[in-house]
């Protein structure tokens, strides 16, 4: 305990780097297996816009060159790798010639904000409910109401999003239908803007929370049942400790440990789930960016977004690896 040993840190950093490298490679290889030529697509789009394109061959060659597609594969790969590690993903083909990195930089804060908000809420609520389902002293109502609320867990996020949108935005008009902030407010560090962001983020966050908290609640319930039968919990009761103290310090404190691990592994999936929710609410995040890029076959953007998502997952696993020994004394910084 205390400090993190340097060898452990280096070890984890190497793992992190390798993960990122493999991910970056896969992201490069997979689109290249597709028969679609991005330059063709762009040309097609130009043609559709202008009716026809004069000296098409020349334009095509020029486009290929600007994407670096005229070079040998191996050169392309290492160039790509070097650029990617520096967060240079090239230019978007759909909103040519905007750099992918600036598209991502614009979208990332929104996604991170929405995700951190909804993930923290769902993790806290889910685990608390799971714990209370097991705790003997919970009010009866809790034990009846929670399993009923779990029904939502089986709904896909796209439906929960539409449902919430229909009820609270379209019918009740409590919340705006779409967007990340109001058209009338100027983005900046003002109260108006913050309120607008919260107001707009509420339904998207809720539609994620409502379909994901059950996962945590069910997991926590199982873990709590196991912990409840442990000798140390029985002894805690014999010790005459206060019930609430036993709940937090002896039960939840131990039951939560595997949930923290699951949390790190789930980050990637959570982002994936968020893609559709962002799309429904026209929320200007990575999810919407990715969705639109897929529709437009905008490979550089798809690659960039995928890379950032994998990077976020790898980073969160890395962080949990570092933190875990501090929350579970049986695990040491080793290997």
């Amino acid at each position, binding site marked *: 305990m205390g400090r993190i040993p340097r060898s452990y840190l280096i070890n984890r950093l190497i793992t992190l780097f390798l993960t990122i490298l493999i991910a970056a490679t896969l992201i490069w290889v997979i689109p290249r297996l597709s028969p679609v030529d991005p330059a063709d697509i762009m040309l097609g789009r130009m043609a559709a816009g202008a009716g026809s394109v004069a000296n098409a061959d020349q334009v095509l060659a020029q486009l290929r060159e600007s994407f670096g597609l005229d070079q040998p594969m191996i050169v392309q790969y290492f160039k790509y790798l070097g650029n990617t590690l520096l967060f240079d993903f090239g230019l978007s083909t759909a909103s040519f010639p905007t750099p992918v990195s600036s598209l991502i930089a614009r979208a990332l804060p929104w996604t991170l904000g929405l995700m951190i908000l909804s993930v923290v809420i769902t993790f806290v609520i889910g685990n608390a409910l799971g714990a209370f389902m097991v705790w003997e002293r919970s009010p009866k109502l809790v034990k009846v109401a929670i399993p009923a609320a779990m029904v939502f867990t089986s709904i896909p996020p796209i439906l929960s999003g539409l449902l919430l949108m229909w009820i609270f935005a379209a019918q009740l008009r409590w919340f705006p239908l779409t967007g990340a902030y109001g058209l009338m407010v100027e983005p900046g560090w003002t109260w108006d803007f913050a309120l607008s962001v919260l107001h707009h983020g509420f339904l998207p966050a809720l539609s994620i929370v409502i379909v994901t908290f059950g996962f945590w609640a069910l997991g926590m319930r199982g873990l709590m049942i196991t912990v409840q039968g442990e000798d140390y919990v029985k002894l805690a009761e014999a010790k005459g400790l206060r019930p609430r103290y036993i709940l937090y310090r002896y039960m939840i404190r*131990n039951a939560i440990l595997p949930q923290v691990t699951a949390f790190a592994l789930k980050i990637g999936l959570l982002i994936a789930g968020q893609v559709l929710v962002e799309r429904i609410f026209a929320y200007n995040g990575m999810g919407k960016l990715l969705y639109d890029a897929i529709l437009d076959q905008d490979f550089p953007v798809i690659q960039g977004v995928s890379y950032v998502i994998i990077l976020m997952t790898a980073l969160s696993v890395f962080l949990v690896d570092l933190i875990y020994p501090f929350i579970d004394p049986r695990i040491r910084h080793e290997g």
Partner: protein
Amino acid sequence: MTEPRNVVLKVRGLSVFYATPTGDVRATDDASFDLYEGETLGLVGESGSGKTTATSGILRMVSSPGRIVAGSVELDGVDLLALKEEDLRRQRWSKLALIPQGAMNSLNPTMKISAQIADVIRTHTGKTPPRDRILELFQMVGLPGRIHDMYPHELSGGMKQRVCIAMGIALNPRVIIADEATSALDVVVQRVVAQTMAKVRDALGVSMIMIGHDMGLMAQMVDRIAVMYSGKIVEIARVADMFARPAHPYSKILIDSVPSLTQRQALRITGGITHDPRNPPKGCIFQLRCPYAAPQCREPQPLREINPGQLAACCRAEEILAGTAQAREIADA
């Protein structure tokens, strides 16, 4: 042992049953006994005879599917089974502590050893104990001070057991129940831990209920022995009386199975409990295996005083003591 002594713990008619789909298991059935000030009472019986269940009844810690069906447990005149929950919580540990059967898993893996002793002291006294008090407790049970900031997984089994003993004496309780506190340890460590327990007990003068399989160890550690068979207490007597002249046929079998008083050996009884615990025979609980069973054994057999200080639940106890009891007089039911 001749002067009249105060009763600390008075158990009367304690019955704890477990509900099963095919009926109640009568794990502890109508148990009554007294625990005197400063004495150690041994509770023996083969596995499944209801020893742990009886203690969980005394502690009022029976969990589903079990339930306390009847009885009273008076600690210094206060019936624990009738107390309000919050009052019961205050009595726990400050008056009645437990050294649990599974000491290996009885410590919270995410809390430092010292914190697990400190929390019970803080809860019941309202004050966080100084470091010195924890170290003093460690010293009493022969633990090194360096474990203060350790976690349970860093301790050996014997050390964990000692931590449990230190925890048990932290509030100077009136009664400590030790449920097979040593049986999970290897033989050498068992002996040392048992000695530690005896030393601490003598130093504090605390009353104790000690549960175990090991008749030899019992003989060295306890003042009186209560013998349980299939949920019933069949005999209670002073150690010397129990070993010299057991009055209940089952106690007699137990004693005979121990080669000598000084040699230690776990209970080894062939046969085990033969009847279905959900459906015990009418009358004496032991009649199906008793070598002296007679027609009158089909009547209920309450514990009764055979000699001063010796109680047995057998209608033929006097004959057995006199050595005149005839072998089995009834056919198997």
